[in-house]
């Protein structure tokens, strides 16, 4: 087991966002977490990358208790979080955004290879290396956000709604690249509102409803589940 979350509880003030959820991700898998607005998907990812404090429960990654780590140290452990809304540094160029993501790396050659790999995966970024982040289109920003996660050399990638705001063509491209990244050895935990996409992409899936996991299983099974079809796949 690469990542395991046990009885995780998170509150914002008096409002409880997660009521003790448990799930796990195995090495090499693609796992999806689906749910409606406000279900607690982003909260779960932020708890894993230690951006928010946790009231109860445990988060283990490669046997380590993540609750002992600060957010920048979680990145060093190999967890790359692509946050909701991309969060590109608009005042930095594309290249600088990528270099910043390699902040803790000292392997010059590896970094150079990763730049090449990224520009092969995302040719549009290669054309825009010196452009400021805030001049990129939404889709290009999403590519850059994924590319940054690659630069941190994450072994586990947490993706928060990468399909948001993307045209269908771009979305298909992005998921094709994400699958390549997974096949090259990166484990993926994907958060999505677009359940149809998530179920197609992931091997296993958890359904989150107002802070509780209500369903889980292989994606193919969940896609056949009448409750899932009614609630998330439009009948």
């Amino acid at each position, binding site marked *: 087991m690469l990542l395991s979350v046990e009885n995780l509880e998170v509150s914002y003030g008096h409002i409880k966002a997660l009521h003790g959820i448990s799930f796990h991700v195995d090495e090499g898998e693609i796992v999806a977490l689906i749910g409606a607005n406000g279900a607690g998907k982003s909260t779960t990812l932020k708890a894993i990358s230690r*951006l928010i404090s946790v009231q109860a429960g445990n988060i283990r990654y490669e046997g380590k208790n993540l609750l002992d780590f600060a957010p*920048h140290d979680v990145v060093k452990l190999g967890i790359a979080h692509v946050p909701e809304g991309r969060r590109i540094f608009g005042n930095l160029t594309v290249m600088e955004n990528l270099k910043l993501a390699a*902040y803790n790396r000292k392997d010059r050659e590896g970094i150079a290879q990763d730049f090449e790999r990224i520009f092969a995966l995302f040719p549009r970024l290669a054309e825009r290396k010196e452009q400021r982040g805030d001049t990129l289109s939404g889709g290009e920003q999403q590519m850059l956000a994924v590319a940054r996660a690659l630069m941190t050399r994450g072994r586990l990638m947490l993706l928060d709604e990468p399909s948001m705001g993307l045209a269908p063509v771009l979305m298909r491209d992005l998921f094709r690249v994400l699958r390549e990244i997974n096949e090259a050895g990166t484990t993926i935990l994907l958060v999505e509102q677009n359940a149809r996409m998530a179920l197609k992409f992931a091997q296993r899936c958890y359904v989150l409803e107002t802070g509780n996991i209500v369903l889980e299983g292989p994606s193919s099974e969940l896609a056949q589940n009448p409750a899932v079809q009614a609630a998330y796949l439009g009948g």
Partner: protein
Amino acid sequence: MTYILQQLINAVQLGSIYALIALGYSMVYGVLRFINFAHGDIFMVGAFLSYFAAVLIKRLAGATAIPTALIFVGSMLLAMLGTALITLSIERIAYRPLRRYRLSVVITALGMGVFLEHMTLVIVGPWRISFHPLITETVYKVVGVSISTTQLVIIFVSILLMLILEFIVRQTKQGMAMRAISYDREAVPLMGVNVDHIITLTFAIASCLAAAGGLLYAHAYPIIEPYMGIMVGWKAFISAVVGGIGVIRGAMLGGYILGFVEIAAGAIFPSRMRDLISFVVLMIVLLAKPTGIFGLPLRQKV
């Protein structure tokens, strides 16, 4: 014509010092969205530490004659080190625990400024100390305009420091992290960057520039006293705002603008009106462009 050129040189000299100090306000604001109102007093501490460092170096040298240039550089480096240590202690003890309480931390900064003034008062007494220049003064005459080594050194050292700063901010990964923090601080840890380290580094750089400013100021106006940082601090702060606070080049530009305005005001109006006129001019600039000349990069909406 020579008169104007002469005043222009004076303006560049004064503006360079304001720019060095303004940068400190601006950089700290960039990473923390916080005005460090103790920064003017940090500048004063820098001037005093330069004074004591020079005394110390001369004492250590004893009978051996060492070049004044070496004493100058040595004093500046020691003053930078000492000032940075004091600033980092203040940040650690007084600012960091209060960082989330925006108003309290500003009040604390004002308090730390008063604290520094009075500590200095207690240590050195209420006397005005005359600063023995560490630059051998020679005056050159170029087409009727006189320019002294002191002026040349002040301008040269300031510009050199600003170029070094520009390099750090543009080319190093720490500089990239600083700029990223000023845009979207919450997202920076996700890049593996320890934000506290970068904030510490920012304060350290800001106080080094202020210390250099203190040493240079003491060469232009060789009297130092515990309250010398108040007015200079306000002026540098306003320069930073006029240039666009949070923007490095804005602070530089703002410093030079104030230098020019002040010298011009002093040349045209009676000298007691100088500060009044400069503040009025800066206020007019702000009314025309409330976010400063280079504007403030708005924090990304999430």
